[in-house]
């Protein structure tokens, strides 16, 4: 927590949380979370289940009271305001549409409490249904809609009151793949059009990468990394970040030597030269993250980092995803399907590792 900030946070942040702590009986769901989100940003909060991301969202919404810390919306301290007083809205995991109300009544629900007369309410609700592509569905019951359509109703209901921020709690989780992709694109388009700040909770890293301006990666109640999707993918801060965002080969090794920003790491029988991070000394135990696309297969006998045998290959259209057994373990590979494959299933191959793209993380002494 910044000293001397007082009751009002920096005006630039639309949403700001400081030192949030929340404890369920035995687990620390939020272990001191600080976060600032700017106006109009699309931010994803990403993490495995139980990492505290939903708890964070619920604290911001006012559905949970934090044990410690503050929440600011547009600079105002809203930590102790009940949910109905906060100028924000939420799309729930199971959508939580009102089964006793029609589609248009669902969407108009929030407007009632803003003191809008009935005519304006249904007018605004109609416009919002138009925006999400549900014009003509006003009188329907929510049971008569498909999953994707219900999703749109939930979104329209949350947007019609013009909230300062919209919180989304894994809203696409229940949709099947094709509709999910379509809704991702649509959510993004609507967010750009309305310029409302979106805070999107998900455990799906491809979803987070595809949609957001910024990815906040959480684990065990704390923020691990807070960066753009590209930055998160290219420069993960630790082994967890590297393995959770995108696919990677995580290998353990020992630093042999460090010289001129390049270090030589011994991983089993192989030696890899990688760009060295700060504070790495010879003898240090490290984890090396090598993305599948940074591995190139060569014909057996050609110069390569290490030898291996193709154990698995699956053709996924533009790419062939493979697994190659080597003396340092099973390595995931990803090769363009345009070129003829170097080795087929069972073939001996050479494995070339592009060390300049690898990332090295110092392992704890305890690990």
């Amino acid at each position, binding site marked *: 927590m910044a000293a001397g900030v007082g009751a009002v946070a920096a005006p630039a942040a639309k949403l700001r949380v400081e030192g949030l702590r929340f404890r369920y009986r035995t687990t620390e769901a939020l272990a001191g979370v600080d976060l600032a989100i700017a106006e109009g940003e699309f931010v994803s909060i990403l993490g495995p289940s139980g990492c505290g991301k939903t708890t964070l969202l619920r604290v911001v919404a006012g*559905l949970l009271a934090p044990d410690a810390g503050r929440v600011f919306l547009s600079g105002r301290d809203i930590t102790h305001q009940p949910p*109905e007083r906060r100028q924000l809205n*939420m799309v*729930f995991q199971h959508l*939580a549409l*009102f089964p006793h109300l029609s589609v248009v009544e669902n969407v108009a629900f929030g407007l009632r*409490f803003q003191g809008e007369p009935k005519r304006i309410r249904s007018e605004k609700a109609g416009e919002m249904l138009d925006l999400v592509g549900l014009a003509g569905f006003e009188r329907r019951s929510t049971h008569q809609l498909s999953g994707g359509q219900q999703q749109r109703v939930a979104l329209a209901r949350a947007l019609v009151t013009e909230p300062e921020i919209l919180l989304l709690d894994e809203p696409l989780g229940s949709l099947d793949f094709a509709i999910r992709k379509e809704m991702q694109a649509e959510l993004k388009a609507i967010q750009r059009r309305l310029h409302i700040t979106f805070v999107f909770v998900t455990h799906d890293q491809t979803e987070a990468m595809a949609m957001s301006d910024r990815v906040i990666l959480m684990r065990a109640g704390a923020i691990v990394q807070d960066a753009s999707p590209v930055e998160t993918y290219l420069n993960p801060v630790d082994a967890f970040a590297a393995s959770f965002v995108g696919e990677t080969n995580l290998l353990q090794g020992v630093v042999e030597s460090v010289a001129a920003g390049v270090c030589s790491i011994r991983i089993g029988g192989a030696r890899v030269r990688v760009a060295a991070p700060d504070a790495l000394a010879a003898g240090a135990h490290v984890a090396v993250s090598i993305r599948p696309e940074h591995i190139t297969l060569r014909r057996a006998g050609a110069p390569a980092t290490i030898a291996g045998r193709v154990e698995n290959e699956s053709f996924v259209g533009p790419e062939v995803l493979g697994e190659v057994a080597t003396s340092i373990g099973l390595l995931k590979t990803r090769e363009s399907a345009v070129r003829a494959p170097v080795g087929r299933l069972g073939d001996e191959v050479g494995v070339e590792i592009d060390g300049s793209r690898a990332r090295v993380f110092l392992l704890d002494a305890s690990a």
Partner: protein
Amino acid sequence: MTSVAGDPVAPAAVLRNRTHRRSIARLLSTVALAAPLTVWLAALVAVPLGILVVYSFWRVVAFQIVHVYSLANYRASFSRVFLRALENSLVIGLSTAAITCVIAFALAWAVRFRVRRGKNLLLLAIVAASAGSYLARIYAWRGILGAQGAINSFLTAVHLTSGPLGFLIFNRGAVIVALVNLFVPYAFLPIYANLLAVDPEILEAGRVLGAGPIRNLRHVALPLTAVGLATSFVYVLIFATGDFAIPTFLGGPTGLPAAQVIQSQFGEIFNWPLGAAMAIVYLLVLGGISALLAVYAGRRSRRLAR
């Protein structure tokens, strides 16, 4: 179904025929399922009710029932005594039903959304509260509310009052208190079952969308539990209005319940036809109120199921 079952291009006539046969089979199985209850109700409700209707048009002359049809009993049943008793019963029934539903709703709400540990034990305790002798309950309430009862003894002992408070018993209030106590466990179950189907997320959605606790109750929680509430209300209304032992033992001398007036026609007064007419009037009034509530609940549940 025979060979047509797997035929992908069955002609329309065959399809229609098949649907037709299927709907007949459905109808038959429905009849079979409903038959035992139908026979039971016919034998024990419809037949006696028919006899009651016939009786209500007969007369009593010199302690003999004569089979002369007239509307005289109905005219006679709109007497001051019966109408006041009917009003008294309805006030007791409606108040009891309303208070019971409020208490049962609050209890069901707490068990559903607030209680975390020991929920099953609590449910068991609530169901257990419906056990226990009806008569023992009446005497227990006399022991609590009476002049030498628990409340008055306590108040006198701590010198809050100099003598026993007389208004605690032998009036409509005491009757309602005892009836509410009797019916809360029964009213609890339909409301609780209804609340089980309400996703807490829906209530949270209401809050986040700007409804404070009271408005959320009114616009979200109550509409979603209207069916359970109406069920409990009708149930309690019917039994509380028809009760006559509790009003007799805990009510005042002025608060004669309709059921007792009717019962006395079949007993000491010996005017079965008049009693039958009063019973019919009573049934029509109570049935009318219940039917309105049932229609309301039916509309609600259809809307939810749509």
